[in-house]
């Protein structure tokens, strides 16, 4: 079903993934590879399991007690469900940005260095360096450099979302998962984030859930279309948007449902 270029390394290899919330199956027999340094867009109508899917990639989905999974997800060749793979380690490597910006009720600086502190860095100047680098990478440095110690809730929604991205970048993840990161933002803030994603792609592998076909087309290399928990079609974004192979994909892309 997938259609990869040969020179890219696979970072996530998903094999026969099934997921249940109690008795309701939300993901059905997924097989999919995600490549390094790609922006992979996950699209599909509401309730099709997009969020569930990306939350499975960093095992955040396990926070819901009723969740059960079967199948494998290989992250750099290791099964993330195996006992030896600690969930904290996975989440350090696979960062996540949420739909609604969720900065901590602390200062901007404290938000950015949170992860680094947690991971044991105590040196003040080192932390400052991390903060600056991450904020620069998230294209937020210039806007906040004079008020690093003010509360993060004073920022606008778009700034908050970039702060959350900076917070992720500060612990040097390899993958960034983004669940509709712009759906709570206005068009200008959205544009900024999209630009940022394109920029970040050089260094990170990005998986992004989006409701906006346009957004997927604009920023992603690969697109995967989900429907009712199934992966209907996936592949190069251009191909998917121009010549979808599945009727349902076409219907969805052309706005016939969803």
């Amino acid at each position: 079903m997938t259609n990869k270029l040969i020179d890219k390394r696979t970072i996530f290899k998903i094999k026969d993934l099934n997921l249940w919330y109690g008795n309701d199956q939300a993901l059905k027999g997924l097989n999919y590879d995600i490549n390094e340094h790609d922006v992979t867009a996950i699209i599909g109508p509401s309730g099709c399991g997009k969020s569930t899917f990306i939350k499975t990639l960093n095992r955040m989905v396990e926070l819901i007690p009723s969740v059960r999974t079967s199948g494998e997800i290989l992250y750099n060749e290791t099964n993330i469900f195996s006992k030896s793979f600690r969930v904290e380690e996975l989440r350090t490597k696979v960062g996540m940005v949420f739909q609604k910006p969720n900065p901590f009720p602390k200062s901007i600086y404290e938000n950015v260095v949170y992860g680094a502190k947690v991971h044991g860095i105590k040196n003040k100047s080192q932390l400052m360096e991390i903060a600056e680098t991450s904020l620069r990478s998230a294209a937020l440095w210039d806007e906040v450099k004079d008020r690093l110690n003010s509360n993060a809730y004073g920022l606008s929604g778009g700034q908050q979302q970039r702060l959350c991205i900076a917070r992720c970048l500060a612990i040097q993840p390899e993958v960034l998962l983004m669940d509709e990161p712009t759906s709570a933002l206005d068009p200008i803030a959205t544009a900024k984030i999209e630009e940022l994603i394109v920029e970040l792609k050089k260094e990170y592998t990005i998986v992004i859930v989006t409701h906006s076909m346009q957004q997927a087309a604009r920023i992603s290399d690969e697109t995967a279309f989900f429907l009712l928990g199934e992966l209907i079609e996936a592949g190069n974004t251009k191909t998917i948007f121009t010549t979808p192979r599945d009727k349902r994909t076409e219907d969805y892309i052309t706005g016939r449902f969803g």
Partner: protein
Amino acid sequence: MEKVTGVREIIKNNFNSNKGRLMEKVMPKAFLLAASISIITTIGIAFTLVFDAYKFFSKVPFKDIFSTRLAPLASTPAFGILPLINGTIIIALIAMSVAIPVGLTSAIYLSEYASENIRRTLKPIMEVLAGIPTIVYGFFAYSFVTPLLMKAIPSLEAKNALSPGIVMGIMIIPLVASLSEDAMNSVPNSLREGALALGSTKLEVALKVIVPAGFSGIIASFVLGISRAVGETMIVAIASGSSKNFTFDITKSMQTMTAYIVEFTSGDAGSGTLGYYSLYAVGLLLFIFTLLMNLLAQYISKRYREEY
């Protein structure tokens, strides 16, 4: 479609008769009257205390109460309040040093670690614990905890500050735990997820994100706990004795403000004597103190609510 005859007429007649209308006027007034009982109670308390405390202070100069000698019935009576304040504070401190760590950690466990089932079982048990009459805790302190502690600390006296302090702390655990848990529960899940997604352990999430975010509610629960500890009576009346010495030794008997009131009203002071009025002075102090604490708790939880 047929209609029952007369309904409209009956209703109309009833509207014209003035029944009901009286009730409509009287009831709100009656309810207001009932509601004002609570205000009258507060005024009553304040008035009672101030009135008789005034009689006390008209005989005992205000500065005399800042003494460490308290001997209300001695041939030369002395009304230094410092032993009582000292006893109250020390016992409250002991109580809070039990209640705060245990209460807070229980709250963290219930809010961050426990599964829904465990939470659902443990919370009602906490409620039971909170509903046990304090006299029972008093009995428990005196007849069980004190003898137990005596084995560990040979110098402990039969009536001491330590044992009631600890038991009072146990009594306050549910209060601190459940209010702190509420505060932590009201921290939005998105913050939890944000922290976990950064690879934090639950401990880090709890200590670095949840507790700071719910801090005001947690502090408010501590303040209410302190207010409870200061106002608690029966445990100290039974287990800490009534020594009016000014001491910092928690193995010795101490008297709190509440215990002083109980000791004296349970007979010692005939009405009209100076000792009798001294009760009200102590009561006034206690009232003002707990009032301030309660206002502080309300202020804290109101002021810092909805930060996120």
